[in-house]
């Protein structure tokens, strides 16, 4: 959604073409991100002609401020829904920055890793908005990601296993 998409596209802006093809996963309710992504990829195709990407949609796993219990149910449903997608794409890398959508995708990849089907590196970048506390997605994925990146020093202190590179968006 909105801010998350803008941030993640900035993160992608300096990546080389080794990070290709790019598979974007969006919530089915997200209306605005697709246009931003297409615009970004179009610009990218001007420099890197072999550039490839795809877009997939999954049901939104959690509404903002949705209750804890119903979140568990909807997230489980989203994980099951994401499994075939993650299995099909078998990504080498999953990059995410916090929208609810990313949790089931990452957890499904984590599961495929446990089952020795595909080992995906999960890189989570917490949003620049998070200065002192982690988002819900961050709190969960702190334990499931290979690299957990924070953008403010307070968070690095609170979450010592995280990586601090300063502001990267």
């Amino acid at each position, binding site marked *: 959604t909105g801010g998350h998409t803008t941030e993640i596209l*900035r993160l992608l802006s300096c990546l080389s073409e080794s990070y290709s093809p790019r598979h974007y996963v969006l919530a089915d309710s997200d209306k605005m991100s697709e246009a931003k992504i297409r615009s970004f990829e179009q610009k990218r195709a001007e420099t890197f002609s072999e550039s490839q990407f795809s877009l997939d949609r999954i049901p939104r796993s959690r509404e903002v401020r949705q209750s804890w219990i119903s979140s568990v149910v909807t997230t489980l449903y989203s994980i099951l829904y994401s499994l075939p997608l993650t299995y099909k794409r078998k990504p080498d890398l999953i990059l995410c920055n916090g929208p609810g959508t990313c949790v089931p995708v990452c957890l499904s990849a984590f599961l495929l890793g446990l089952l020795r089907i595909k080992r995906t590196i999960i890189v989570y*970048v917490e949003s*620049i*908005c998070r200065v002192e506390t982690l988002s819900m997605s961050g709190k969960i994925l702190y334990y499931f990601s290979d*690299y957990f990146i924070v953008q403010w020093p307070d968070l690095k202190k609170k979450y010592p296993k995280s990586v601090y590179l300063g*502001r990267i*968006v």
Partner: protein
Amino acid sequence: FRFKDSLAEELRSADLVISHAGAGSCLETLEKGKPLIVVINDKLMDNHQLELAKQLHRDGYVLYCNCSTLVETLQSMDLSALKPFPPGQPEKFASFLDKVFGLQ
């Protein structure tokens, strides 16, 4: 107007921006190099939104007030005391990922 896809035009011609504490608004304004006063809505205490506004204020990039102190802030503000906002560095992220994948 109530809603527009992009405020880039308005931002470009503004001399001062007064905004709520939304991250997108704050960062977009700072990146365009415009002085910014962030107004906190005391009644809509979304704490997570405040984190960024408070930090930006602590670092000297924005002025900070609530609805009732806005007029006083406007009267006594010293915009030259605001520090220029350095851009984020996605190249550091790219470099980090390249190391992870042995692509250096």
